Protein backbone atom coordinates (compact mmCIF):
# COMPACT_ATOMS: atom_id res chain seq x y z
CA UNK A 1 0.00 0.00 0.00
CA UNK A 2 1.41 3.37 -0.92
CA UNK A 3 1.88 6.11 1.62
CA UNK A 4 0.33 8.72 -0.66
CA UNK A 5 -3.20 7.30 -0.73
CA UNK A 6 -4.25 7.88 2.83
CA UNK A 7 -4.69 11.54 3.50
CA UNK A 8 -7.82 13.13 4.85
CA UNK A 9 -9.43 15.65 2.58
CA UNK A 10 -7.47 18.90 2.96
CA UNK A 11 -10.65 20.95 3.32
CA UNK A 12 -11.81 18.70 6.19
CA UNK A 13 -8.40 19.20 7.79
CA UNK A 14 -8.75 22.98 7.66
CA UNK A 15 -12.32 22.83 9.05
CA UNK A 16 -11.19 20.66 12.00
CA UNK A 17 -8.24 22.96 12.58
CA UNK A 18 -10.52 26.01 12.60
CA UNK A 19 -13.11 24.43 14.96
CA UNK A 20 -10.55 23.36 17.56
CA UNK A 21 -8.52 26.55 17.26
CA UNK A 22 -11.60 28.67 18.00
CA UNK A 23 -12.66 26.31 20.82
CA UNK A 24 -9.28 26.44 22.60
CA UNK A 25 -8.95 30.18 22.30
CA UNK A 26 -12.52 30.73 23.56
CA UNK A 27 -12.01 28.34 26.49
CA UNK A 28 -8.67 29.99 27.25
CA UNK A 29 -10.32 33.41 27.45
CA UNK A 30 -13.18 32.00 29.54
CA UNK A 31 -10.94 30.31 32.13
CA UNK A 32 -8.36 33.04 31.99
CA UNK A 33 -10.84 35.50 33.57
CA UNK A 34 -10.09 33.83 36.91
CA UNK A 35 -6.50 35.06 36.83
CA UNK A 36 -6.79 38.31 38.77
CA UNK A 37 -3.11 38.81 39.62
CA UNK A 38 0.34 37.56 38.58
CA UNK A 39 0.28 34.61 41.02
CA UNK A 40 -3.14 33.59 39.73
CA UNK A 41 -1.82 33.79 36.14
CA UNK A 42 1.27 31.71 36.99
CA UNK A 43 -0.05 29.17 39.49
CA UNK A 44 -3.84 29.20 39.11
CA UNK A 45 -4.31 30.45 42.69
CA UNK A 46 -2.45 27.41 44.19
CA UNK A 47 -5.80 25.66 44.63
CA UNK A 48 -6.04 23.06 41.84
CA UNK A 49 -7.89 19.90 42.94
CA UNK A 50 -7.51 16.21 42.23
CA UNK A 51 -9.43 15.85 38.94
CA UNK A 52 -7.97 18.91 37.25
CA UNK A 53 -4.52 18.16 38.68
CA UNK A 54 -4.38 14.57 37.41
CA UNK A 55 -5.86 15.58 34.05
CA UNK A 56 -3.40 18.40 33.45
CA UNK A 57 -0.40 16.22 34.38
CA UNK A 58 -1.58 13.39 32.15
CA UNK A 59 -2.50 15.63 29.21
CA UNK A 60 0.78 17.52 29.43
CA UNK A 61 2.77 14.28 29.38
CA UNK A 62 0.77 12.95 26.39
CA UNK A 63 2.71 15.06 23.96
CA UNK A 64 2.89 14.85 20.23
CA UNK A 65 5.99 12.82 20.97
CA UNK A 66 3.88 10.18 22.70
CA UNK A 67 1.63 9.89 19.67
CA UNK A 68 4.44 10.10 17.14
CA UNK A 69 7.65 8.89 18.81
CA UNK A 70 6.13 5.89 20.63
CA UNK A 71 5.14 4.30 17.28
CA UNK A 72 8.61 5.19 16.00
CA UNK A 73 10.15 3.41 18.98
CA UNK A 74 7.99 0.34 18.30
CA UNK A 75 8.86 0.25 14.62
CA UNK A 76 12.58 0.70 15.30
CA UNK A 77 12.93 -1.42 18.44
CA UNK A 78 9.90 -3.68 18.61
CA UNK A 79 8.34 -4.88 21.86
CA UNK A 80 11.01 -3.31 24.07
CA UNK A 81 10.62 -0.08 22.12
CA UNK A 82 6.97 0.22 23.18
CA UNK A 83 7.85 -0.52 26.79
CA UNK A 84 10.85 1.81 26.65
CA UNK A 85 8.58 4.71 25.83
CA UNK A 86 6.16 3.75 28.60
CA UNK A 87 8.95 3.98 31.18
CA UNK A 88 8.58 7.74 30.91
CA UNK A 89 5.53 7.30 33.19
CA UNK A 90 7.90 6.23 35.99
CA UNK A 91 8.95 9.87 36.14
CA UNK A 92 5.38 10.81 37.12
CA UNK A 93 5.18 7.98 39.68
CA UNK A 94 8.38 9.12 41.38
CA UNK A 95 7.48 12.78 41.12
CA UNK A 96 4.34 12.08 43.19
CA UNK A 97 6.20 11.83 46.52
CA UNK A 98 8.55 14.58 45.38
CA UNK A 99 5.57 16.92 44.90
CA UNK A 100 4.60 16.40 48.53
CA UNK A 101 8.15 17.24 49.63
CA UNK A 102 8.30 20.27 47.33
CA UNK A 103 5.07 21.69 48.77
CA UNK A 104 6.39 21.12 52.29
CA UNK A 105 9.80 22.74 51.73
CA UNK A 106 8.72 25.59 49.45
CA UNK A 107 5.16 26.54 50.44
CA UNK A 108 5.48 29.87 48.58
CA UNK A 109 7.72 28.66 45.74
CA UNK A 110 7.08 29.66 42.13
CA UNK A 111 9.51 27.70 39.96
CA UNK A 112 11.99 24.83 39.95
CA UNK A 113 14.65 27.54 39.58
CA UNK A 114 13.62 28.92 42.99
CA UNK A 115 14.54 25.62 44.59
CA UNK A 116 17.92 25.32 42.85
CA UNK A 117 18.84 28.94 43.65
CA UNK A 118 17.96 28.65 47.32
CA UNK A 119 19.39 25.17 47.73
CA UNK A 120 22.68 25.44 45.82
CA UNK A 121 23.36 29.14 45.13
CA UNK A 122 23.88 31.20 42.01
CA UNK A 123 26.45 29.19 39.99
CA UNK A 124 24.39 25.97 40.04
CA UNK A 125 21.25 28.00 39.41
CA UNK A 126 22.68 29.59 36.23
CA UNK A 127 23.82 26.17 34.96
CA UNK A 128 20.38 24.74 35.77
CA UNK A 129 18.57 27.59 33.98
CA UNK A 130 20.66 27.04 30.85
CA UNK A 131 19.87 23.33 30.84
CA UNK A 132 16.20 23.93 31.48
CA UNK A 133 15.77 26.60 28.81
CA UNK A 134 17.68 24.57 26.18
CA UNK A 135 15.55 21.52 26.97
CA UNK A 136 12.30 23.49 26.96
CA UNK A 137 13.12 24.95 23.55
CA UNK A 138 14.00 21.48 22.18
CA UNK A 139 10.67 20.17 23.50
CA UNK A 140 8.74 23.12 22.08
CA UNK A 141 10.44 22.84 18.68
CA UNK A 142 9.90 19.07 18.51
CA UNK A 143 6.19 19.58 19.23
CA UNK A 144 5.74 22.40 16.77
CA UNK A 145 7.49 20.26 14.14
CA UNK A 146 5.30 17.30 15.07
CA UNK A 147 2.20 19.45 14.60
CA UNK A 148 3.26 20.40 11.08
CA UNK A 149 4.26 16.84 10.20
CA UNK A 150 1.09 15.20 11.46
CA UNK A 151 -1.25 17.66 9.77
CA UNK A 152 0.64 17.13 6.54
CA UNK A 153 0.55 13.33 6.94
CA UNK A 154 -3.16 13.17 7.71
CA UNK A 155 -4.68 15.94 5.66
CA UNK A 156 -2.08 17.19 3.23
CA UNK A 157 -2.01 20.65 4.89
CA UNK A 158 1.41 22.13 4.17
CA UNK A 159 3.92 21.61 7.02
CA UNK A 160 4.55 25.32 7.50
CA UNK A 161 0.83 26.24 7.65
CA UNK A 162 -0.04 23.42 10.06
CA UNK A 163 2.89 24.12 12.35
CA UNK A 164 2.18 27.87 12.35
CA UNK A 165 -1.54 27.52 13.15
CA UNK A 166 -1.03 25.08 16.05
CA UNK A 167 1.73 27.17 17.57
CA UNK A 168 -0.21 30.41 17.07
CA UNK A 169 -3.38 29.03 18.72
CA UNK A 170 -1.44 27.79 21.77
CA UNK A 171 0.36 31.12 22.13
CA UNK A 172 -2.96 32.98 21.97
CA UNK A 173 -4.89 31.10 24.62
CA UNK A 174 -1.90 30.79 26.98
CA UNK A 175 -1.49 34.53 26.59
CA UNK A 176 -5.08 35.22 27.60
CA UNK A 177 -5.46 32.81 30.47
CA UNK A 178 -2.10 31.72 31.94
CA UNK A 179 -2.15 28.52 34.01
CA UNK A 180 -5.94 28.74 34.59
CA UNK A 181 -6.47 28.45 30.82
CA UNK A 182 -3.77 25.79 30.47
CA UNK A 183 -5.24 23.57 33.20
CA UNK A 184 -8.83 24.07 32.05
CA UNK A 185 -8.10 23.22 28.42
CA UNK A 186 -5.85 20.36 29.55
CA UNK A 187 -8.83 18.79 31.32
CA UNK A 188 -10.95 18.81 28.16
CA UNK A 189 -7.99 17.71 26.06
CA UNK A 190 -7.14 14.81 28.40
CA UNK A 191 -10.70 13.46 28.10
CA UNK A 192 -10.55 13.66 24.29
CA UNK A 193 -7.11 12.02 24.23
CA UNK A 194 -8.16 9.12 26.49
CA UNK A 195 -11.40 8.44 24.62
CA UNK A 196 -9.63 8.77 21.25
CA UNK A 197 -6.80 6.38 22.15
CA UNK A 198 -9.22 3.78 23.54
CA UNK A 199 -11.40 3.99 20.41
CA UNK A 200 -8.46 3.80 18.00
CA UNK A 201 -6.82 0.94 19.93
CA UNK A 202 -10.07 -1.05 20.14
CA UNK A 203 -10.86 -0.63 16.44
CA UNK A 204 -7.31 -1.56 15.38
CA UNK A 205 -7.52 -4.73 17.49
CA UNK A 206 -10.70 -5.77 15.68
CA UNK A 207 -9.15 -5.09 12.28
CA UNK A 208 -5.89 -7.02 12.61
CA UNK A 209 -5.19 -10.67 13.23
CA UNK A 210 -2.60 -10.86 16.02
CA UNK A 211 -1.06 -14.24 14.99
CA UNK A 212 -0.63 -12.86 11.45
CA UNK A 213 1.06 -9.72 12.80
CA UNK A 214 3.39 -11.89 14.88
CA UNK A 215 4.25 -14.21 11.96
CA UNK A 216 4.89 -11.30 9.60
CA UNK A 217 7.18 -9.64 12.11
CA UNK A 218 9.03 -12.91 12.69
CA UNK A 219 9.58 -13.29 8.93
CA UNK A 220 10.49 -9.78 7.77
CA UNK A 221 11.45 -7.88 10.96
CA UNK A 222 12.70 -10.59 13.32
CA UNK A 223 14.85 -8.26 15.44
CA UNK A 224 11.67 -6.47 16.59
CA UNK A 225 10.65 -9.63 18.46
CA UNK A 226 14.14 -10.27 19.86
CA UNK A 227 13.97 -9.82 23.65
CA UNK A 228 17.73 -9.28 23.68
CA UNK A 229 17.81 -6.58 20.96
CA UNK A 230 20.74 -4.46 22.19
CA UNK A 231 19.52 -1.03 21.10
CA UNK A 232 16.06 -1.67 22.58
CA UNK A 233 17.39 -2.85 25.94
CA UNK A 234 19.57 0.22 26.22
CA UNK A 235 16.74 2.49 25.08
CA UNK A 236 14.63 1.13 27.95
CA UNK A 237 16.97 2.61 30.55
CA UNK A 238 17.88 5.62 28.45
CA UNK A 239 14.28 6.69 28.01
CA UNK A 240 13.54 6.10 31.68
CA UNK A 241 16.34 8.42 32.77
CA UNK A 242 15.45 10.94 30.10
CA UNK A 243 11.91 10.91 31.53
CA UNK A 244 13.20 11.29 35.09
CA UNK A 245 15.33 14.23 34.01
CA UNK A 246 12.45 15.87 32.14
CA UNK A 247 9.95 15.56 34.99
CA UNK A 248 12.24 16.14 37.98
CA UNK A 249 13.86 19.31 36.70
CA UNK A 250 11.32 21.01 34.49
CA UNK A 251 9.16 23.85 35.65
CA UNK A 252 6.17 22.40 33.82
CA UNK A 253 5.92 19.84 36.63
CA UNK A 254 7.09 22.03 39.49
CA UNK A 255 4.54 24.71 38.57
CA UNK A 256 1.82 22.05 38.75
CA UNK A 257 3.10 20.89 42.13
CA UNK A 258 2.90 24.50 43.35
CA UNK A 259 -0.51 25.02 41.72
CA UNK A 260 -2.15 21.91 43.22
CA UNK A 261 -3.49 21.80 46.74
CA UNK A 262 -0.91 20.28 49.09
CA UNK A 263 -3.09 17.31 50.00
CA UNK A 264 -3.77 16.22 46.42
CA UNK A 265 -0.54 16.86 44.50
CA UNK A 266 1.09 13.47 45.14
CA UNK A 267 -2.15 11.55 44.42
CA UNK A 268 -2.75 13.52 41.23
CA UNK A 269 0.75 12.82 39.86
CA UNK A 270 0.47 9.11 40.69
CA UNK A 271 -2.93 8.85 39.01
CA UNK A 272 -1.67 10.70 35.94
CA UNK A 273 1.22 8.19 35.67
CA UNK A 274 -1.26 5.29 35.79
CA UNK A 275 -3.40 6.89 33.08
CA UNK A 276 -0.38 7.65 30.91
CA UNK A 277 1.42 4.28 31.11
CA UNK A 278 -0.70 2.33 28.55
CA UNK A 279 -0.87 5.14 25.98
CA UNK A 280 2.57 4.62 24.35
CA UNK A 281 1.94 0.87 24.28
CA UNK A 282 -1.33 1.38 22.39
CA UNK A 283 0.26 3.93 20.05
CA UNK A 284 3.32 1.72 19.50
CA UNK A 285 1.31 -1.41 18.78
CA UNK A 286 -0.39 0.36 15.87
CA UNK A 287 2.99 0.87 14.19
CA UNK A 288 3.95 -2.80 14.58
CA UNK A 289 0.93 -3.69 12.44
CA UNK A 290 2.21 -1.62 9.46
CA UNK A 291 4.03 -4.49 7.74
CA UNK A 292 1.14 -6.94 8.09
CA UNK A 293 -1.23 -4.45 6.54
CA UNK A 294 1.16 -3.88 3.63
CA UNK A 295 1.69 -0.24 4.54
CA UNK A 296 4.92 1.22 3.22
CA UNK A 297 6.43 3.62 5.75
CA UNK A 298 8.08 6.55 3.99
CA UNK A 299 8.17 9.02 6.86
CA UNK A 300 9.10 7.43 10.17
CA UNK A 301 8.04 10.56 12.08
CA UNK A 302 4.43 10.13 10.98
CA UNK A 303 4.10 6.35 11.16
CA UNK A 304 1.56 6.22 14.01
CA UNK A 305 -1.02 8.60 12.52
CA UNK A 306 -0.37 7.12 9.07
CA UNK A 307 -1.16 3.55 10.10
CA UNK A 308 -4.13 4.54 12.28
CA UNK A 309 -5.71 6.56 9.49
CA UNK A 310 -5.17 3.72 7.00
CA UNK A 311 -6.73 1.15 9.30
CA UNK A 312 -9.68 3.28 10.35
CA UNK A 313 -10.38 5.18 7.14
CA UNK A 314 -11.52 8.82 7.01
CA UNK A 315 -13.37 8.68 10.35
CA UNK A 316 -10.25 7.24 11.98
CA UNK A 317 -8.15 9.95 10.39
CA UNK A 318 -10.45 12.56 11.95
CA UNK A 319 -10.15 10.89 15.38
CA UNK A 320 -6.35 10.75 15.08
CA UNK A 321 -6.27 14.35 13.88
CA UNK A 322 -8.26 15.52 16.90
CA UNK A 323 -6.26 13.41 19.39
CA UNK A 324 -2.97 14.68 18.02
CA UNK A 325 -4.17 18.28 18.01
CA UNK A 326 -5.25 17.92 21.66
CA UNK A 327 -1.99 16.27 22.70
CA UNK A 328 0.01 18.98 20.97
CA UNK A 329 -2.00 21.83 22.41
CA UNK A 330 -1.99 20.41 25.95
CA UNK A 331 1.80 20.23 25.97
CA UNK A 332 2.71 23.36 24.02
CA UNK A 333 0.52 25.56 26.26
CA UNK A 334 2.02 24.07 29.44
CA UNK A 335 5.54 24.52 28.20
CA UNK A 336 4.92 28.09 27.06
CA UNK A 337 3.44 28.99 30.45
CA UNK A 338 6.09 27.21 32.54
CA UNK A 339 9.07 28.45 30.51
CA UNK A 340 7.74 31.97 30.58
CA UNK A 341 7.36 31.71 34.39
CA UNK A 342 10.94 30.47 34.68
CA UNK A 343 12.28 33.38 32.65
CA UNK A 344 10.18 36.01 34.46
CA UNK A 345 10.71 34.73 37.98
CA UNK A 346 14.25 33.44 37.77
CA UNK A 347 15.87 35.75 35.28
CA UNK A 348 13.89 39.01 35.35
CA UNK A 349 12.49 39.15 38.87
CA UNK A 350 15.51 37.66 40.68
CA UNK A 351 18.37 39.00 38.57
CA UNK A 352 17.20 42.19 36.88
CA UNK A 353 14.23 43.82 38.65
CA UNK A 354 13.61 42.41 42.14
CA UNK A 355 11.09 45.17 42.92
CA UNK A 356 9.02 44.83 39.74
CA UNK A 357 5.29 45.23 40.35
CA UNK A 358 2.65 42.59 39.75
CA UNK A 359 1.40 44.44 36.66
CA UNK A 360 4.90 44.72 35.20
CA UNK A 361 5.50 40.98 35.68
CA UNK A 362 2.17 40.16 34.05
CA UNK A 363 2.92 42.33 30.98
CA UNK A 364 6.40 40.86 30.66
CA UNK A 365 4.96 37.35 31.00
CA UNK A 366 2.75 37.97 27.98
CA UNK A 367 5.66 39.32 25.96
CA UNK A 368 7.81 36.32 26.83
CA UNK A 369 5.07 33.90 25.74
CA UNK A 370 4.87 35.70 22.39
CA UNK A 371 8.68 35.74 22.12
CA UNK A 372 8.93 32.03 22.86
CA UNK A 373 6.30 31.36 20.21
CA UNK A 374 8.21 33.38 17.61
CA UNK A 375 11.59 31.75 18.40
CA UNK A 376 10.01 28.26 18.27
CA UNK A 377 8.35 29.09 14.96
CA UNK A 378 11.61 30.33 13.44
CA UNK A 379 13.56 27.23 14.53
CA UNK A 380 10.80 24.87 13.36
CA UNK A 381 10.37 26.55 10.00
CA UNK A 382 13.07 24.72 8.03
CA UNK A 383 12.34 21.23 9.57
CA UNK A 384 16.07 20.59 9.81
CA UNK A 385 16.17 17.30 11.73
CA UNK A 386 13.96 14.37 12.68
CA UNK A 387 11.94 14.49 15.90
CA UNK A 388 14.04 11.85 17.58
CA UNK A 389 17.24 13.82 17.06
CA UNK A 390 15.80 17.15 18.21
CA UNK A 391 14.46 15.72 21.45
CA UNK A 392 17.08 13.17 22.45
CA UNK A 393 19.97 15.59 22.03
CA UNK A 394 18.68 17.35 25.14
CA UNK A 395 18.46 14.02 27.03
CA UNK A 396 21.96 14.09 28.57
CA UNK A 397 21.43 17.66 29.75
CA UNK A 398 18.27 16.95 31.73
CA UNK A 399 19.50 13.55 32.97
CA UNK A 400 22.49 15.30 34.54
CA UNK A 401 20.05 17.29 36.72
CA UNK A 402 18.25 14.25 38.20
CA UNK A 403 20.54 13.67 41.16
CA UNK A 404 21.30 17.29 42.04
CA UNK A 405 17.52 17.75 42.26
CA UNK A 406 16.56 14.66 44.24
CA UNK A 407 19.62 14.71 46.51
CA UNK A 408 19.01 18.42 47.09
CA UNK A 409 15.40 17.70 48.09
CA UNK A 410 16.17 14.88 50.52
CA UNK A 411 19.83 15.09 51.62
CA UNK A 412 21.23 17.78 53.87
CA UNK A 413 24.69 16.52 52.86
CA UNK A 414 24.30 17.32 49.13
CA UNK A 415 26.53 20.29 48.35
CA UNK A 416 26.70 22.96 45.66
CA UNK A 417 30.12 21.95 44.23
CA UNK A 418 28.94 18.40 43.75
CA UNK A 419 25.71 19.60 42.10
CA UNK A 420 27.59 21.88 39.70
CA UNK A 421 30.13 19.21 38.72
CA UNK A 422 27.35 16.61 38.37
CA UNK A 423 25.48 18.80 35.89
CA UNK A 424 28.51 19.90 33.89
CA UNK A 425 30.28 16.52 33.78
CA UNK A 426 27.06 14.54 33.25
CA UNK A 427 26.03 16.79 30.36
CA UNK A 428 29.47 16.77 28.72
CA UNK A 429 30.08 13.01 28.93
CA UNK A 430 26.45 12.25 28.04
CA UNK A 431 26.69 14.41 24.91
CA UNK A 432 29.98 12.71 24.00
CA UNK A 433 28.25 9.31 24.36
CA UNK A 434 25.40 10.56 22.15
CA UNK A 435 27.77 11.12 19.27
CA UNK A 436 30.34 8.37 20.01
CA UNK A 437 27.92 5.50 20.78
CA UNK A 438 24.37 6.61 20.06
CA UNK A 439 21.30 8.44 21.41
CA UNK A 440 20.21 5.25 23.19
CA UNK A 441 22.90 5.53 25.89
CA UNK A 442 23.38 9.29 26.27
CA UNK A 443 20.87 9.96 29.09
CA UNK A 444 21.81 6.77 30.93
CA UNK A 445 25.51 7.65 30.97
CA UNK A 446 24.77 11.24 31.96
CA UNK A 447 22.63 10.06 34.89
CA UNK A 448 25.32 7.58 36.00
CA UNK A 449 27.99 10.31 36.02
CA UNK A 450 25.60 12.59 37.89
CA UNK A 451 24.78 10.08 40.66
CA UNK A 452 28.43 9.13 41.11
CA UNK A 453 29.47 12.77 41.43
CA UNK A 454 26.73 13.55 43.95
CA UNK A 455 27.55 10.49 46.05
CA UNK A 456 31.30 11.13 46.10
CA UNK A 457 30.99 14.87 46.77
CA UNK A 458 28.44 14.32 49.58
CA UNK A 459 30.77 11.81 51.22
CA UNK A 460 33.96 13.84 50.80
CA UNK A 461 32.55 17.25 51.74
CA UNK A 462 29.16 16.78 53.38
CA UNK A 463 27.03 19.93 53.56
CA UNK A 464 24.78 20.87 56.49
CA UNK A 465 21.88 22.50 54.74
CA UNK A 466 19.18 24.16 56.80
CA UNK A 467 15.83 23.29 55.16
CA UNK A 468 14.20 26.46 56.49
CA UNK A 469 16.30 28.46 54.00
CA UNK A 470 14.06 27.11 51.22
CA UNK A 471 11.01 28.94 52.53
CA UNK A 472 11.56 32.29 50.87
CA UNK A 473 8.57 33.89 52.57
CA UNK A 474 10.45 33.59 55.88
CA UNK A 475 13.72 34.75 54.34
CA UNK A 476 12.07 37.89 52.95
CA UNK A 477 11.18 38.90 56.47
CA UNK A 478 14.88 38.97 57.31
CA UNK A 479 16.43 40.36 54.13
CA UNK A 480 15.29 41.95 50.91
CA UNK A 481 18.30 40.48 49.10
CA UNK A 482 16.85 38.44 46.24
CA UNK A 483 19.83 36.17 45.61
CA UNK A 484 20.74 33.62 48.25
CA UNK A 485 24.42 33.99 49.06
CA UNK A 486 25.07 31.70 51.97
Amino acid sequence: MDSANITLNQGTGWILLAIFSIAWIALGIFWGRKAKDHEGFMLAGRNVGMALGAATAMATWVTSNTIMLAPQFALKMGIWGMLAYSTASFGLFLFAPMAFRIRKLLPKGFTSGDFVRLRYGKAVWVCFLLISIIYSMAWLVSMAMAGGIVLQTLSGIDYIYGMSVILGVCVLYTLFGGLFAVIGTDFVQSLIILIGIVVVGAVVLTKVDLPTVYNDLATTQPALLDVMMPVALLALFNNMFFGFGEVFHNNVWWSRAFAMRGDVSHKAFFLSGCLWFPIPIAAGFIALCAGSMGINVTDIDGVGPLVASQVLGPIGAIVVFVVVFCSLASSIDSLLAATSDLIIQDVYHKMIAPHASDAQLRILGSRIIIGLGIVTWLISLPRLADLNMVLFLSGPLVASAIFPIICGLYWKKANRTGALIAMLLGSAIGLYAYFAIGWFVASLISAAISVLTMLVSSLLAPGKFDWSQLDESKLEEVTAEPIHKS
Partner: protein
Amino acid sequence: MLIPLSAQTSGFSLRTVEFIEPTLEDGATAINNTTGHVDLVWSTQAPDPKITYELASAPTSEFEASVTRYQGVDTRSFVSGLPGGSHYFRVRILDSENPGPWSRPLEVDVNYVERSQVKWLMALGTACLIATTLIIVGGSLKTRKESN
Protein backbone atom coordinates in the same frame (compact mmCIF):
# COMPACT_ATOMS: atom_id res chain seq x y z
CA MET B 1 15.06 17.09 -16.19
CA LEU B 2 16.96 16.84 -19.50
CA ILE B 3 17.49 13.26 -20.53
CA PRO B 4 20.14 12.30 -23.09
CA LEU B 5 18.67 11.36 -26.46
CA SER B 6 20.37 7.98 -26.42
CA ALA B 7 18.68 7.20 -23.14
CA GLN B 8 15.28 8.30 -24.43
CA THR B 9 15.55 6.23 -27.58
CA SER B 10 17.10 3.10 -26.16
CA GLY B 11 14.58 3.00 -23.28
CA PHE B 12 17.08 1.08 -21.16
CA SER B 13 18.53 3.83 -18.92
CA LEU B 14 15.07 5.26 -18.27
CA ARG B 15 14.14 2.00 -16.61
CA THR B 16 17.25 1.77 -14.48
CA VAL B 17 16.77 2.49 -10.78
CA GLU B 18 19.47 3.29 -8.24
CA PHE B 19 19.52 3.85 -4.49
CA ILE B 20 20.30 7.46 -3.65
CA GLU B 21 20.09 7.06 0.14
CA PRO B 22 21.77 5.96 2.29
CA THR B 23 25.04 6.98 0.69
CA LEU B 24 28.25 5.00 0.97
CA GLU B 25 31.21 6.61 2.65
CA ASP B 26 34.33 7.05 0.50
CA GLY B 27 35.95 3.69 -0.19
CA ALA B 28 33.22 1.70 1.57
CA THR B 29 31.32 -1.08 -0.17
CA ALA B 30 28.59 -1.43 2.45
CA ILE B 31 26.50 0.71 4.78
CA ASN B 32 27.60 0.17 8.38
CA ASN B 33 24.58 0.16 10.67
CA THR B 34 24.27 -0.17 14.46
CA THR B 35 20.51 0.16 14.87
CA GLY B 36 18.92 -2.48 12.61
CA HIS B 37 16.87 0.01 10.64
CA VAL B 38 17.56 1.86 7.41
CA ASP B 39 15.72 4.48 5.35
CA LEU B 40 16.01 3.50 1.67
CA VAL B 41 15.46 6.08 -1.07
CA TRP B 42 15.73 5.32 -4.78
CA SER B 43 15.35 7.18 -8.03
CA THR B 44 15.20 6.67 -11.75
CA GLN B 45 16.46 8.91 -14.53
CA ALA B 46 12.94 9.90 -15.48
CA PRO B 47 10.91 10.05 -12.28
CA ASP B 48 7.19 9.52 -12.79
CA PRO B 49 4.65 9.22 -9.94
CA LYS B 50 2.88 6.45 -11.87
CA ILE B 51 5.90 4.14 -12.00
CA THR B 52 5.55 1.02 -9.87
CA TYR B 53 8.65 -0.28 -8.11
CA GLU B 54 9.62 -3.52 -6.45
CA LEU B 55 12.00 -3.51 -3.48
CA ALA B 56 13.57 -6.84 -2.53
CA SER B 57 16.02 -7.97 0.13
CA ALA B 58 18.08 -11.05 0.78
CA PRO B 59 20.78 -12.24 3.16
CA THR B 60 23.25 -12.91 0.31
CA SER B 61 24.55 -10.87 -2.60
CA GLU B 62 23.24 -13.54 -5.00
CA PHE B 63 19.73 -12.80 -3.70
CA GLU B 64 18.93 -16.40 -2.92
CA ALA B 65 15.85 -16.55 -0.68
CA SER B 66 14.96 -13.03 -1.80
CA VAL B 67 11.93 -11.41 -0.14
CA THR B 68 9.81 -8.69 -1.75
CA ARG B 69 9.53 -5.91 0.83
CA TYR B 70 7.44 -3.43 -1.13
CA GLN B 71 5.60 -3.02 -4.41
CA GLY B 72 4.12 0.37 -5.27
CA VAL B 73 4.73 3.90 -6.46
CA ASP B 74 6.67 5.24 -3.45
CA THR B 75 10.36 5.91 -3.93
CA ARG B 76 11.20 5.50 -0.27
CA SER B 77 10.85 2.76 2.31
CA PHE B 78 11.76 2.55 5.97
CA VAL B 79 13.02 -0.94 6.76
CA SER B 80 13.43 -2.01 10.39
CA GLY B 81 13.94 -5.08 12.55
CA LEU B 82 17.03 -6.27 10.68
CA PRO B 83 18.98 -8.87 12.65
CA GLY B 84 22.76 -8.56 12.99
CA GLY B 85 24.71 -9.48 9.82
CA SER B 86 24.69 -8.50 6.14
CA HIS B 87 21.52 -7.60 4.27
CA TYR B 88 21.27 -6.88 0.54
CA PHE B 89 18.64 -4.69 -1.08
CA ARG B 90 17.75 -4.08 -4.71
CA VAL B 91 14.97 -2.26 -6.52
CA ARG B 92 13.50 -2.27 -10.03
CA ILE B 93 10.70 -0.81 -12.09
CA LEU B 94 7.83 -3.24 -12.23
CA ASP B 95 5.12 -3.55 -14.77
CA SER B 96 3.17 -6.57 -15.78
CA GLU B 97 4.70 -6.90 -19.23
CA ASN B 98 8.33 -6.08 -18.85
CA PRO B 99 10.05 -5.55 -15.48
CA GLY B 100 13.11 -3.30 -15.60
CA PRO B 101 16.59 -4.42 -14.63
CA TRP B 102 17.47 -4.67 -10.95
CA SER B 103 19.47 -1.84 -9.43
CA ARG B 104 22.97 -2.42 -8.13
CA PRO B 105 22.59 -4.19 -4.79
CA LEU B 106 23.00 -2.13 -1.64
CA GLU B 107 24.72 -3.95 1.22
CA VAL B 108 23.76 -2.99 4.79
CA ASP B 109 25.92 -4.52 7.53
CA VAL B 110 24.14 -4.47 10.88
CA ASN B 111 26.55 -4.57 13.82
CA TYR B 112 24.73 -4.03 17.10
CA VAL B 113 26.45 -2.88 20.26
CA GLU B 114 28.44 -5.78 21.75
CA ARG B 115 26.42 -7.95 24.18
CA SER B 116 29.08 -7.54 26.86
CA GLN B 117 28.81 -3.75 26.55
CA VAL B 118 25.01 -3.98 26.72
CA LYS B 119 25.17 -6.06 29.92
CA TRP B 120 27.56 -3.56 31.48
CA LEU B 121 25.36 -0.61 30.56
CA MET B 122 22.22 -2.38 31.79
CA ALA B 123 23.89 -3.07 35.12
CA LEU B 124 24.74 0.62 35.30
CA GLY B 125 21.12 1.52 34.51
CA THR B 126 19.80 -0.86 37.17
CA ALA B 127 22.15 0.62 39.77
CA CYS B 128 21.06 4.18 38.88
CA LEU B 129 17.39 3.19 39.02
CA ILE B 130 17.82 1.62 42.45
CA ALA B 131 19.68 4.71 43.67
CA THR B 132 16.94 7.04 42.35
CA THR B 133 14.15 4.99 43.92
CA LEU B 134 15.92 4.62 47.26
CA ILE B 135 16.65 8.33 47.56
CA ILE B 136 13.07 9.36 46.71
CA VAL B 137 11.13 6.62 48.52
CA GLY B 138 13.45 6.65 51.56
CA GLY B 139 13.37 10.43 51.73
CA SER B 140 9.59 10.54 51.35
CA LEU B 141 9.02 8.01 54.12
CA LYS B 142 11.20 10.15 56.36
CA THR B 143 9.24 13.28 55.34
CA ARG B 144 5.93 11.56 56.19
CA LYS B 145 7.32 10.46 59.51
CA GLU B 146 8.42 14.01 60.31
CA SER B 147 5.04 15.40 59.24
CA ASN B 148 3.20 13.02 61.52
